[in-house]
């Protein structure tokens, strides 16, 4: 079977070295680039299945690379950023990046994000899984039905649309803007207040006994992530 090819882009050689070691050890084929321009060249010649991209780079920032890549490639992109650079993360995600990681991060975290992104990219091409499970909650996307245990949970249309959008993107981070645009429609991108209220309601209906949010997790300053059971 052909190995999955990952392009890693970072201007710090130590990071490249560590990431390469981690990815190769887990069976990935690795190509690397040390700046934005090289990244675009390598992406065009090597046609990677996924890109891990540092945002802060000389000669073409990660954001610019992200934008340029999205013009012709749908390979999942995971951006690497630092704490306090929430705006960069959100910009990258809104430009089409699939996920982000905050430096410093563990290799296991990176691998998990990469798996989700690759799986999602595959699914985009094929038919979607009609049933998403998270703990004792089952979301039947085909029949528009949500159950907690055996009991059906009654949701309003907006609540359902929100949940369905999060669930179809299980494991991926979704920015406030993406969610608002998708669920509420264009023109509602700044109504984060509304979004907070709906998320809070959804959590109360689906996770009423849990003291801590586990199904819909908050990504501080960025958005939300739906955590489904691993399939």
């Amino acid at each position: 079977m052909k190995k999955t090819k990952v392009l890693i882009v970072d201007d710090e050689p130590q990071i490249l070295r560590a990431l390469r070691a981690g990815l190769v050890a887990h069976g990935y084929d690795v190509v690397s680039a040390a700046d934005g321009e090289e990244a675009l060249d390598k992406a065009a010649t090597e046609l990677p299945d996924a890109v891990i991209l540092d945002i802060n780079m000389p000669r073409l920032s990660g954001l610019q690379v992200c934008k340029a890549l999205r013009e012709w490639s749908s390979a999942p992109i995971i951006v690497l950023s630092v704490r306090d650079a929430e705006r960069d993360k959100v910009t990258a995600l809104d430009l089409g990046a699939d996920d982000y990681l905050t430096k410093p991060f563990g290799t296991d975290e990176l691998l998990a994000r990469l798996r989700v992104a690759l799986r999602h990219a595959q699914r985009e091409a094929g038919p979607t899984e009609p049933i998403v499970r998270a703990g004792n909650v089952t979301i039947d996307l085909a029949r528009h039905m949500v159950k907690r245990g055996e009991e059906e949970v009654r949701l309003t249309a907006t609540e359902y649309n929100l949940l369905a959008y999060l669930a179809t993107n299980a494991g991926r981070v979704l920015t406030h803007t993406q969610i608002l645009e998708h669920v509420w429609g264009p023109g509602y991108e700044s109504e984060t207040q509304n979004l907070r209220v709906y998320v809070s309601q959804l959590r109360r209906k689906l996770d009423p006994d849990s003291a801590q949010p586990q199904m819909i997790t908050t990504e501080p300053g960025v958005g939300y992530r739906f955590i489904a059971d691993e399939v």
Partner: protein
Amino acid sequence: MRNVFSFASKYRPTDFVFTLVAVAATTVALILLRARLSTQVIALLYLLPVMLSATRWGLLSALVASLVAFLAFNYFFLAPTHTLAVSNPEELLVLVVSLIVAILISQSVGAANLHAAQARAREMEATTLYNLTRALGAQAGLDEILSSITRHVTEAFDLAGCEILLAAADGSLESKARYESTDGDPAERGQPVEIPLTAHQVTMGALRLTTRRPDVQVGPTTLRLLTTFAAQVGLFIERARLAREADRARLLEESDQLKSALLSSVSHDLRTPLSAIKASATVLLHEDVALDAATRYDLLSAINEETDRLNRLVGDLLDMSRIEAGTLRLKCDWCDLDELIRAVAHRLSPRMTAFQIQFDWPVDLPLIYADYVQIDRVVTNLLENASRFAPPGSPIKVEAHAEAEAMTVAVTNQGPAIPDRLHPHLFDKFYRVSEDRAPGMGTGLGLSICKGIVETHGGRIWVESPVANNAGARFVFTLPFPSGAPPRVTPIVEALSDEENQGSDR
């Protein structure tokens, strides 16, 4: 206070009416009593309305009274009566003398009145000036004092508005404070008048006055008074600037000393995890030493943990320097505190398994308007701090409640009480209750970061200890709501749709 300073300028028509009434009343009374009175006495009695007018209604009224009294005396009482002719030379003398006396009395009484009015006006001026000057002495920052001055000036002189402009470094005038009277038509304002603000012959700015209507000028008395006051304001601003510079110099000196103390503390804190990482890594690199799996795992975990610690420290230092430099930029939005606190607790749960974290707030807690990431830091630091001092197995309680003006959040642990004398220092940089730098101890920056973030949001943070039974500590912070009613996380009224329709609207 309208017209306080226009004592000498205006006569009201009613003054003359009163004057004429007084003379007429006197005439009627004298006509009734004429049989018993001699001409001289009548002349004397006519001085009464003249004096009354002089004292009550001013010099001009008194002169009018003198003239009218003169005519009435002549017309009604001097033979031949009902004509203005005088037959008896003695009576003519009485008439002329009484007119002269009336005029002289009018003048001297009028002058005395004028002096009294001037004295009153000067007293008013002194009081106004005193009130204005008192604003300069308030215990407040320069900006607040300047804005209180604009308000006082506007109100004291019944203006439409007052603005203080100060010269910026490039010589252009910058508005520093401004007050606009709320009543009156904003479209109908007079041309602004500027009074220079000077200190030691150097003009540093101007006091700009706007009258209520285009046809109303700023009076000469007001101008004179405000020029005097402007000189004081000028001196005051200069004094405040000098004081600020002196403060800055002193702070610089202190911060130099503080910096070297901090540097030694920081380098210690940075080196400790680095040493641990270096030590573990070098052991692992030694090829000639056979390590069993457990030891390898131990060393690798140490590297992993110390890296996290180092990362937290670097983050804390960065936060602290941003807060100190005043460059912490808040990205405020509506946040659900319930979501925020639960998310923090969830993230910290692997490190806080020894404690029961309890939440206590109403279901309809309103949203806060804050920077989510920063408030996340505050709650994280407070929870971590609580876990350092709470006895294992004890509860750590997070409470929140909304009041009219602000949201209050409290994190309470059942650790040892913090003595009162330590309370003021808890939020100082690098302050640790114990000198122990055990691995579990923080960087000594957590609480000062909390303070910085909360205060940047316009809130307050403090500690209450002991909480109960001579133990426990409660860290409380407030976050003010923006003006206007805080939105509540109330269930949204939306019809439950049928399954078939779900997902079909938008």
